[in-house]
């Protein structure tokens, strides 16, 4: 039995097929569906509003341009994420022209996974801060990660792509995704501990 398209359910492959044939409305639907996610992703990676907007536009212009290359084996979203990540990294490289940020930079062998601070957190650490303060703390922590770790963390834990989709979007291996994600998570944990730890509990860590 063919898959039925319930009314209101978004049939993506059909939209992509129509867009490929030049159906403007179909392409606009795809743009509207994914633009908030792509913008958020670009903002997280570039840490810059104007750059994120450029990335957003470039992503959807390039995606349309290359729609013929999209094979439909992966999800449309994973495919545009890959374009958006590449565009974002190009922006980063431009901003830090003195420091290159290759996505495949060799990783040091594990010093990053050394855990320095171990302390119990408050029960609901989020509630210690206003939404704005919390947002700033979280953003700054992500910003402080090196791009290789940041991109993996953003895709896996913020955009909630699977390990496989992240590997595909970044063009790296699954073990690479896993090891980068571990380092990113541990580094963030470390940074957030400074804000969220329960007062007077530090001693516990060294028992």
């Amino acid at each position, binding site marked *: 039995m063919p898959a039925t398209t319930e009314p209101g359910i978004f049939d993506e492959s059909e939209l992509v097929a129509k867009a490929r044939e*030049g159906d403007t409305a179909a*392409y606009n639907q795809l743009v509207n569906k994914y*633009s908030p996610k792509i*913008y958020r992703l670009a903002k997280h990676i570039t840490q810059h509003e104007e750059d994120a907007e450029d990335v957003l*536009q470039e992503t959807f212009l390039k995606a349309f341009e290359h729609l013929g290359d999209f094979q439909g084996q992966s999800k449309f979203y994973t495919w545009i994420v890959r374009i958006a990540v590449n565009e974002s990294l190009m922006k980063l490289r431009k901003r830090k022209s003195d420091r290159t940020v290759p996505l495949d930079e060799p990783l040091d062998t594990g010093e990053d996974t050394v855990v320095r601070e171990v302390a119990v957190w408050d029960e609901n650490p989020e509630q210690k801060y206003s939404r704005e303060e*919390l947002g700033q703390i979280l953003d700054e922590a992500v910003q402080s990660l090196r791009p290789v770790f940041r991109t993996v963390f953003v895709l896996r834990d913020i955009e909630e792509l699977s*390990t496989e989709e992240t590997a595909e979007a970044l063009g790296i291996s699954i073990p690479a995704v896993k090891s980068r994600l571990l380092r990113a998570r541990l580094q*963030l944990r470390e940074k957030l*501990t400074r804000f969220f730890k329960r007062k007077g509990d530090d001693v516990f860590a060294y028992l």
Partner: protein
Amino acid sequence: MLTCKEFLQELNDYLDDAVDIELRRHIEAHITECPNCFVILDTTKKTIQVYKGMQPQVLPDEVSSRLNRAVERMLTQKRNSTAPR
């Protein structure tokens, strides 16, 4: 018995629910005996949760309309360049 280092190596898969029962048992045995690793597990889990709980990014209206205009411009150009003469 897992060492702390081995525990750290398995932490991600454990958090992502991607370990088999055997390994899960070893990890859980380790954290009942190692308070540091228990805290690392707990705070890493909370780190992920706090990010997942972030407010979804809304696309500012002006960003959205500039995007739509850019897409529109491109689509119009395409149409004109591929139109039969």
